[in-house]
């Protein structure tokens, strides 16, 4: 498990991303940035994450639909969802893919305008996209795709904006509606050391 990795290992890996983090500091008033002992900085860790027990998943895709229904102005469709059930239909290998709320988010580093932010107001510290600021350049999608398939941010061609999981302001609807309980919320005041760079593939 990601949380078992010690902080030192994490920070050593973080040095790779130091250049990127430098650019984030430029938007310091938008982001709360933690300075760490060796001088590098990472954003504060997410205090809530969605965790997946794929052994319970029945592949019904209720998570996708409730996400779209809740967040998409009534547009019900899996292409408006921020959670994805990757399915191998014949063999039945079902994998719900959620945003990992990375400790050092590639999407956040890639955003040229600071639209990717840490949601402090709701206490989740989710990595969110501020729709007003987003210019729809899709750099975040490209950055995420380097490690995670499908990329968790999704481009909406109608609005010309990108959207991603924002943990529904602390009450993720996919978790609330998953009939089997395959999705759960984990919360920690310490924050979760998960996603990139601890997990580099999913």
């Amino acid at each position, binding site marked *: 498990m990601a949380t078992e990795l010690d902080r030192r290992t994490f920070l050593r890996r973080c040095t790779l991303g130091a250049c990127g983090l430098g650019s984030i500091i430029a938007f310091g008033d938008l982001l709360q940035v933690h300075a760490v002992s060796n001088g590098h900085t990472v954003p504060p860790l997410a205090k809530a994450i969605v965790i997946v027990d794929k052994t319970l998943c029945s592949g*019904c895709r209720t998570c996708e639909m409730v996400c779209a*229904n809740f967040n998409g102005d*009534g547009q019900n469709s899996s292409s408006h969802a921020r959670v994805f059930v990757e399915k191998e*239909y014949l063999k*039945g290998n079902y994998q719900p893919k959620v945003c990992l709320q990375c400790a050092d988010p590639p999407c956040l580093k890639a955003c040229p305008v600071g639209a990717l932010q840490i949601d402090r107001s709701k206490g989740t510290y989710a990595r969110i996209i501020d729709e007003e600021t987003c210019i729809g350049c899709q750099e975040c999608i490209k950055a995420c795709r380097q490690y995670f398939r499908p990329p968790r941010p999704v481009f909406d061609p109608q609005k010309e904006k990108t959207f991603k999981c924002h943990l529904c302001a602390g009450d993720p609807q996919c978790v609330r509606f998953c*009939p089997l309980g395959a999705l759960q919320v984990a919360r920690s005041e310490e924050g979760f050391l998960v996603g990139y760079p601890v997990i580099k593939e999913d």
Partner: protein
Amino acid sequence: MTTYGGWVGKILRVDLTTRKISESSTFDYVPQFLGGRGLGAKICWDEVPPEVSAFDPENRLIFATGPLTGTLAPTSGRFEVLGKCPQSAPVESFTRSGVGGHFAPELKWAGYDAIIIQGKASQPVYLWISDQKAQILDAKDLWGLDTYQTQQMIWKIHGNKTRVMAIGKAGENQSRIAIILTDSGDVSGQGGFGGVMGSKNLKAIAVRGTGSVIVAKPKELAKITHDIQTLFSRRSVKGNPYEPEEKSFKYNIWGGGYGRGSLTLLPGELLDLCNDPASGYSQNPDGCFACPVSCRSRVTGPDITPGVAICAGSYMYLESMVHEPEKGYSKVTWQAAKLADLVGINAYDLMAIIPWLSDCYRAKLLTEEETGLPLEEIGSWRFISTLLDKIANREGFGDLLAEGGQRAAAKLGGKAEELSFMYYPRAGKFGGFREHWTFLGGFPTGYSVTPLALMWALDNRDAMVSHSYISMLWGAAFTIGQNALTAVPEDIFPILKPVMKAVYGSEEAAEVSGPDGKSLSWKWAAPVVKRFHEQSLLKDSYVVCDMLFPYAFNANSSDHIGDTSLESRLYSAVTGIDMSLEESFQKGEMLCTLERALAVRDGRTRQDDILHGIYFEKEDAGGRKYGREELERSKTDYYGLMGWDVNSGIPTRSTLERLGLNDVAQGLERTP
């Protein structure tokens, strides 16, 4: 643009003869005909006259979704396949067949509420639909492939997010009991529409959509969805998807006795393997799109064909359990069902054909030599694989069986035909569908329940496809410690009374036998069946699932009263159209009358609404019999309640006009 939510607004029409592809507005038909079964019935009324036979290129193959399809609404992954059906016997007539899984939402997201296929391609083709576009593509490399291989080939071309409805060999060879399959076991089974697809040289329909369905009241939809989830399911215990967290909770389908993923494997070899984590075999609940329960199981293993299974499919070859009793439900039992899926034969009709063949063999009416089938070893892998292969390829005796069990029996005639009557209850010109809960506890060992006989007399396919009524009976039985096979009507009356009052308006309706225990009560049969038909038409038109809706019986409350308003509330939330429960029933009545008009136009009258003699001659488990005269009186009651002519069973002009079906009234009058 429309102001309604739910429907995406367009119907796709594909003429395979001229290769012309066109679109029309869904709003030519809705909201009046809702969607699914209602929409398809109206299209058939307008476009499929009685002289068009099932395999005529002029027949329409209709895939119709409903306003709820492709939304968060629970069980909204379903759609209906409709048209002139080759399976009804001896006369081909209109019917419908519902399909679950994940195909229907993809079609809605691609921009279409329905597809109408007409004509016949000169070469094998498949249809590729993607985001408001459709193309007819060459399928010569797909022709001959099984239903899984066909999908895999199409996924290679169009990506694995594409959902596919495909036929196997049986469909290609125009079997009257051929299915259309999607994913690993969701099929259009009854009706034989796979044969219709084959007759059009259409191997598959592939669809991918990235659009969306607009929901008028998303918050309201979420709220009702949450209510429905609370009624029907609970999260699973960690590590065991079958067991609900809340110990005493019963998943609320099938009256609460069966639930998540549990109507599949029976005890035996395969279940033992699945329960052994080291074996490489596994069984897990599998959900159709947006389902809160996931009543199917998906089964995988190193040397079996993986797939999802639900009762009829996976129970097709229980003869194997008699053949090798020490193995119980074995790999052969499973693999037989999957082979039927792969070559594309209707498992439900095989459940009549196989025991009927066995009866004929024991009565020395058929021999191994003349059939080319190893009839001495029914239950073996050799028997089933030979049988399915011959049917799929229409080879030898299989050519006859590919016509469906009832037609095959009629061709043989005499004693062999008589032996088929117990498997095909409806006499007259509109039979062809296998027995299914004509008695509580099954035929021939169960109990007479009068509405079941009336439902069977009236339907245009097998009658218990709307499981709500039987689930209610089962639910009452489970409550007092009986089960689906051992339920005794008299014992469950007290439990049923408040439920029947809530759903059908009368406590007395629960009492289907008299206080003396000898006579049956028919008093409430007609009003109960009328309401049951209205509810069935509605749920097949919205479209939601048989297993959950209408929700009559609550296994988790003390009064056991369900809530039959759930579907109309979902409809209102999704479309934004207010519809009271009472209004919805009027619509159900209208759609039921429209379906009747379709059957009448094909030649159906009161004389065809009748069961074979054996259903009146045999005493049930309680020593009672369905009475021929009583059934006739119930039919008169029913026709009267529906506003149909009681002598002929034909909807009257004034009724059709009252229901807003003026064009149908005119059309019926022109029918000779």
